């Protein structure tokens, strides 16, 4: 790849991602409205599309305020962490042949590492806010992330075994015959659950759980610092959706349509699934969520791993 092409890739993907994340605000509100028998934002511009612009103007012109009781430096850093780590993760996502920023041999491990780092964002925010609701939110984040990250990585190892590589491009190529969602259905389900938990989305939005903790770890945030958490959340949804599409549904592979479009379509389907989950389900209780992770998801993941391993061994032997 030439330097020019690489730069075009980097900035192209960045631009598309940020626009997409911003647009998702509108998409989610319209989809939720559709499912909830109401209109959603439909006044600003065609179909309310310019609502996003209006929201951005509002959020950017708000006072940049740090509560006097907060730990200033960490308070400001925390929202940046989530955006940066999620954007880093996108570096290894193969969008299509020739589109993508980096081809790491350990691409998948890199994504997992970034996800682990991203969790610090909410924890630090909760801690630095020096407020009780934020602290409880931060504590919940810590517990939830630890619990769900354990099997998040493990749930993907089946895919790695089948593909024989951590490189995301090779994983996609390995699905030419069959999407991994079929042999790795349990892996898909567990990863989906972990993905929802990692991006703090309803029904697993306990770190922010509005009806309980007001806004959880970002209770004290306003203006663009809050906006970064918001964008980070939407970027997280895109990332998890893109990962599901890449790891289980053959990434850019597909007939007739150009590869990029296939990738976008598959990713969008899972984004819509995220919104639908939010519209449909109530929030489980915090301790039940932990119990579910350790007592149901983890054993299930391990079982999946053992069976997959045995099958791979038997086939190669």
């Amino acid at each position, binding site marked *: 790849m030439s330097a020019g092409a690489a730069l075009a890739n980097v900035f192209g993907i960045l631009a598309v991602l940020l626009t997409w994340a911003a647009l998702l605000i509108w998409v989610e509100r319209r989809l*939720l409205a559709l*499912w*909830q*028998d*109401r209109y959603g934002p439909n006044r600003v511009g065609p179909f309310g599309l310019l609502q996003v612009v209006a929201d951005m103007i509002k959020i950017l012109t708000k006072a940049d305020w740090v509560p006097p009781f907060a730990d200033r430096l960490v308070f400001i850093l925390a929202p940046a962490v989530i955006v940066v780590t999620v954007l880093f993760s996108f570096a290894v996502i193969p969008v299509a042949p020739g589109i993508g920023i980096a081809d790491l041999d350990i691409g998948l491990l890199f994504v997992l590492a970034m996800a682990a780092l991203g969790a610090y964002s909410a924890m630090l925010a909760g801690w630095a806010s020096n407020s*009780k*609701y934020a*602290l*409880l939110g931060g*504590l919940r984040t810590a517990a939830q992330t630890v619990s769900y990250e354990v099997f998040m990585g493990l749930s993907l190892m089946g895919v790695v075994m089948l593909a024989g590589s951590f490189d995301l491009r090779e994983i996609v190529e390995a699905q030419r015959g069959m999407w991994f969602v079929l042999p790795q259905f349990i892996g898909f389900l567990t990863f989906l659950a972990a993905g929802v938990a990692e991006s703090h989305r*309803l*029904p697993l*939005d306990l770190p922010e*759980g*509005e*009806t*309980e*903790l*007001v806004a959880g770890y970002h209770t004290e945030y306003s203006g663009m610092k809050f906006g970064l958490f918001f964008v980070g959340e939407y970027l997280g949804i895109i990332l998890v959706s893109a990962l599901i599409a890449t790891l289980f549904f053959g990434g850019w592979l597909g007939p007739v349509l150009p590869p990029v479009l296939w990738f976008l379509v598959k990713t969008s389907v899972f984004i819509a699934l995220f919104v639908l989950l*939010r*519209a*449909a*389900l*109530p*929030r*489980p*209780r*915090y*301790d*039940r969520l932990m119990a579910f992770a350790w007592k149901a998801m983890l054993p299930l993941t391990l079982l999946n791993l053992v069976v997959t391993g045995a099958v791979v061994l038997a086939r190669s032997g």
Partner: protein
Amino acid sequence: MQAEALQELGQRFSHAILARQPTADDIPTLWVRPTALVDMLQALKAEGYAMLYDLTVIDERERARRPAAAPESDFTAVYHLLSFERNDDIRLKVPLPGAAPVLPSVTSLWANANWYEREAWDMFGVDFEGHPGLRRILMPPTWEGHPLRKDHYARATEVEPYRLPEEKEAAEQEALRFDPAAWGMERQSADADFIFLNLGPNHPSTHGVFRIVLQLDGERIVDAVPDIGYHHRGAEKMGERQTWHTYIPYTDRIDYLGGVMNNLPYVMAVEKLAGIVVPERVRVIRIMLCELFRIASHLVFYGTFAQDLGALSPVFYMFTDRERVFDIVEAICGGRMHPSWFRIGGVAQDLPQGWDRLVRDFVAYLPPRLDEYQRLVLDNAIVKDRTRDIGAYGPAEAIEWGVTGPNLRATGYDWDFRKRRPYGGYDQFDFEIPLGSHGDCYDRCLVRAEELRQSLRIVRQCLENMPEGPYKADHPLTTPPRKEKTLQDIETLIAHFIGVSWGPAIPAGEAFVGVEATKGSNGYYLISDGGTQPYRVRIRTPSFPHLQMIPFLCRGLFIADLIAILGSIDFVMADVDR
């Protein structure tokens, strides 16, 4: 039965009973000596009068026409007991002379006496000896005076203009700071420091301005202190300066989701004092409107309960359905949430043409929607997991805490005032009383979901059997009176003129009427001194005792469980604070 028990008690306490007072509501009313009060209440409780239904005070100092039997008294404490076994009420009155009255506390007899005594202290300055923490409850801690005393001003214009300079604001806020020591709470245990978390008065799940201070060990609730009064608007005090007629709109705003359901006990109590019997059509119209409002209120409960559990969508569906109820209410009454549509002796207007089509469409529309909500909310595994066995209590505890309505029936206790004491014509209707069995959050929702169907049944019967006839009673105290005859005879013209200009003068007396309102038993205890305004209006609301129970329900549970409990109780703060 009733007479027997009273006779036996009368003999036992013959030295303590000062007088027996006749009242318009026929509730046995005994004047007793303060010294014998606790013993007598204890005996009554043992006799089956298990619930301290209400406890209030009357400032008698400006009352001109006291009942002949009543002993001298500056303040009178009133204990209203309810017996479910006997389906009977009894009222004890205690005369209290002097400006600083003192009574023994009955908190050791009834758990729910705590808040009632605090309210009596707050509003009237009656001291209760032996109360575990007698402090203000509805008024801010910095308030001076006792507002329901007759010598306390009722309007801001009667005193210096209110100002809130910065120092005063800071002092007021400081007075609200929670001090664990004042409530006998430890700041730490052997192995943990507790967090004291202010939930409210502004919090997404407190359904209004309600504050509850939580003592937390991690996310586990060690203890809780509810703090109410942020929604207090002096509704009872207002009653003393509005005419009987112009007070009706104030009642709408007590349980502000109940609309005309609030008018009903008030106008029925006034009618009892005035001796008005309303025509058949009025009764059916009133029941229909009340049941429509029960549906509207329960729909709000259903949706917000699901929302409190984190389900975002149901509340939108249910509010949309509630709009359909309001469409009917608007067509009939003109208003929506607060139509203030019942009148002393009738309703404001006759039903409009075409009302039956609206109602018919609605009773056909809602049942399939309710099936869908059942699948969406009550059948959901996460909802079940969040609410089963959470915040559970049994019938005995419910009665001890003064719980009525769906929250009582969720325990499996079969008690609905519409069935047990059919008022206003409910005995003419065919409907069932849904019961729960566990008394937990889930059953509280289940009972209400089923009540929606039963209310629809009642509305359908109203639709099919609406009697013809006048929409107002033919009685001089009906307000506003029927006008047809005013231009034909002078007596009717005079009665009409007075009723419309001054308002009706209701004969002196006392009457209590309670109804099965949306959230439990709501009742009005009215005292008339023969004037155009009530002498005293006491509003017994269901939410007040329900909220008092919260610490008892949430100890040892998680914050998330408290949210489920708050959602399941179905309260509105206006109904608590009045």
